[in-house]
């Protein structure tokens, strides 16, 4: 079928002067934009669209793809350093990345994130190259019942994200899910819990919740703990990873490259769910789950590998089917249409040099990202040596502008303050914020797919138990939810006996 020729022309394109130049520019712009408050891959691509109007389409696509995975790559920085996740895909990174930075190992945390992202990105590009045409069938296997099961599987993480009281974790999750019911109900178009306020129609933006619960709540803690100002926090620690660090990383990197890639292929799942599921599976597999949440190497490596692998995965349905699987790829698809490229089942045969060119350029792009980012880490991590009062002011402003640059709505800033207060109160009362944000991200999709499935089956609930994939995931989800609870109960009984 001449696919070898196609690959060859793709390699030629990717290694041409222009190809290398633009993938370099793309990943650089992407990482920088990804580090900006509030700007993730979706805005990064949107920002680049006007620039590509007059470019050669394949080169433009190389550039856009670079911006996309570059932004995912750069997004982890603020999660690790400031506990301020700018995009949903890096929330899980902050669970262990921030504690690690607080321990005085910010450099190490950033290095782990960079290397894991690189490995996740590279392995998944290899998978993309080998299996893209074949895997496209996976992308369309998933319908509402399967998504519902996947969301349930993701939500079972709540029991493993509990730090102490399971009940408190569950309460946190339920309130998180309540927060996501605010706004227009997608399935009927009715409004819920908006109190007649038009600003709430679209629901509460994820970023408002994430930055409030994590960054602003952290700011309150920073204000209070003035005694710890000097000392560990100011040092960024060594960048060097020890042999045992690498050993710790190798497992998650290997596994999550595959898992993240597959989750990325599924339309709608994407980097966020991949990073959470990556975090959870590693916590379940590891022999030392108690380290998670306190700055575990695996806890940083797993979500970072997974979210970058998922980014490549998202290209499978986009390039081989012409189906955008996420908001980001939808914007990317829009940009391609402007350039007269119509991705679809015929793209690979019609324009092989474009198809393969992008994929090959992704290898190069990932190399650039690593080379660009590693030497920069010491400088970026210097943020932490800013004096405490100044850091507090800057983080607040950073969060405000992050939210404002998405909605251009002052109302969201007040909401941000409310969530900041909520996050701080939750901390004081020892309610973990992680289940809240997880439920907030997954809850909306879970309700939506549940109701879609029920409508399709004319309200026959067996639809979830007759589809093998959905059933399998529900069983795994049920077990992974119930087993830790049973275990902790048994533990308690034992303690009581003793």
């Amino acid at each position: 079928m001449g696919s070898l020729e196609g690959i060859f022309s793709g390699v030629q394109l990717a290694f041409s002067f222009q190809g290398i130049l633009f993938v370099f520019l793309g990943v650089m712009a992407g990482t920088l934009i990804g580090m900006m408050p509030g700007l993730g891959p979706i805005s990064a691509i949107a920002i680049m669209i006007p620039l590509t109007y007059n470019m050669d389409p394949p080169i433009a696509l190389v550039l856009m793809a670079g911006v996309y995975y570059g932004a995912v790559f750069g997004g982890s920085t603020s999660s690790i350093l400031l506990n301020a996740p700018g995009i949903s895909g890096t929330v899980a990174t902050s669970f262990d990345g921030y504690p690690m930075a607080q321990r005085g190992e910010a450099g190490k945390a950033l290095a782990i994130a960079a290397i894991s992202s690189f490995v996740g990105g590279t392995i998944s590009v290899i998978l993309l190259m080998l299996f893209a045409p074949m895997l496209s069938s996976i992308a369309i296997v998933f319908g509402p019942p399967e998504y519902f099961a996947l969301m349930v599987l993701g939500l079972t993480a709540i029991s493993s994200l509990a730090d102490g009281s399971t009940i408190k974790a569950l309460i946190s999750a339920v309130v998180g899910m309540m927060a996501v019911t605010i706004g227009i109900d997608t399935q009927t178009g009715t409004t819920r819990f908006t109190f007649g306020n038009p600003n709430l129609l679209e629901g509460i933006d994820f970023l408002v919740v994430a930055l409030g619960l994590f960054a602003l709540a952290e700011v309150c803690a920073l204000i209070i703990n003035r005694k710890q100002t000097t000392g560990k926090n100011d040092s960024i620690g060594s960048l060097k990873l020890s042999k045992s660090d690498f050993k710790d990383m190798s497992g998650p990197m290997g596994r999550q490259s595959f898992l993240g890639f597959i989750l990325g292929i599924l339309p709608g799942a994407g980097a966020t769910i991949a990073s959470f599921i990556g975090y959870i599976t590693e916590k379940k597999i590891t022999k030392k789950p108690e380290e998670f949440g306190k700055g575990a190497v695996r806890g940083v490596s797993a979500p970072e590998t997974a979210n970058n692998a998922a980014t490549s995965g998202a290209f499978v349905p986009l390039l081989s089917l012409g189906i955008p699987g996420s908001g980001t790829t939808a914007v990317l698809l829009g940009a391609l249409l402007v350039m007269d490229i119509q991705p679809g089942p015929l793209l690979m045969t019609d324009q092989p040099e474009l198809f393969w060119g992008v994929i090959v350029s992704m290898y190069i792009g990932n190399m650039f990202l690593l080379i660009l980012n590693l030497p920069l880490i010491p400088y970026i991590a210097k943020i932490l040596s800013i004096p405490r009062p100044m850091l507090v002011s800057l983080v607040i402003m950073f969060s405000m502008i992050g939210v404002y640059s998405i909605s251009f709505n002052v109302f969201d800033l007040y909401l941000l303050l409310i969530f900041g207060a909520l996050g701080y109160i939750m901390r004081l009362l020892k309610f973990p914020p992680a289940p809240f944000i997880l439920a907030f991200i997954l809850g909306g999709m879970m309700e939506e797919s549940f109701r879609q499935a029920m409508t399709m089956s004319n309200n026959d609930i067996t639809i979830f138990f007759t589809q093998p994939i959905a059933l399998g995931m529900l069983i795994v989800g049920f077990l992974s939810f119930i087993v830790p609870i049973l275990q902790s109960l048994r533990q308690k009984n034992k303690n009581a006996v003793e």
Partner: protein
Amino acid sequence: MKKTWLLFLALFTMIVLAACGSADSSSDEEESASGSSDENWKPDQSIEIVAPSSAGGGWDTTARMAAEGFEEEGIIDQGLGVVNKEGGGGAIGWSYVAEKSGNPHHLFVGSPPLLLVPLNGQSEYGYEDFTPLANMISDYGAFAVREDASWDNLNELFDDMKDNPDDITVIGESSPGSMDHIQFVKIAKAAGVDPKSVKYVSAQDGSTMTNLLNGNADVYSSGVTETIEQVRADKIRVLGVTSEERMEGDVVEDFPTAKEQGIDETFVNWRGFFGPPDMSEAEIAYYEEKFAELNESEHWQETREKFAWNEMYMESEEYKEFLSEEKESMQELLNELNIQGE
């Protein structure tokens, strides 16, 4: 400590004073802008076109291409910027422009949701609150089924639907009562299907085509362009489009219209430009002239071809009438569907 507080007080007063000052001066500006509207009005600052959606969508593309056209063809010599005001299915962007009453430097792109969203009670502003300037293009809806589906034309589909409405799932991007739902129901009703019996599922996460292909949904109600690639790859078939006559273009010319299948109904996805409330005659005339010029330009012709849009130019008055008719027919449909605002 005391000193700090004093400093604060001073700063605070300064801010308040400055804020009041700025508020005054900006309202002055607006007054002078609308005050100077004699016979010949000209923009005296850069013009902002609001796309009430995120970048990359239909509204955004229309806004960006128009801004580019105005600049490249030298039709408007002031600067033009496109701003994305996303949210509420458009409501956030509309209320933003509504607040710019009296400042004709803020325009926005509108299409049927401007009628539907307010009718569904999700926006306090409707088209009546704005100044229609010019409609530019039109697009149409398409109803697609899988390649191996048993229906060969719309009539077979609708007949089946009359008998077993529960067995046929229609999927679309928008929520019930908005675009994708309404365009399907409008045509189906004309073919004798009870609008309320249509089983419509909304998938707003980009999974509509997937769900058609994997069999979770049976009919996909969407825009014509979204279907082209999958039709070319023989994965799906388009049973009917909502245009008056066959469309022109490579694949789309093979799509039969609902009309030629004996269903006397159409649905137009019009797209045009609106200004803030209370624009003067001179201001409207200025924009009318400019949009007419853009419509005739080579740039716009190429743009239309590139995106497979159809020409559909209407000037302000005509547009207003068209909108009021459209609104009435939508209202009727929504009443029948029992979807109402408030």
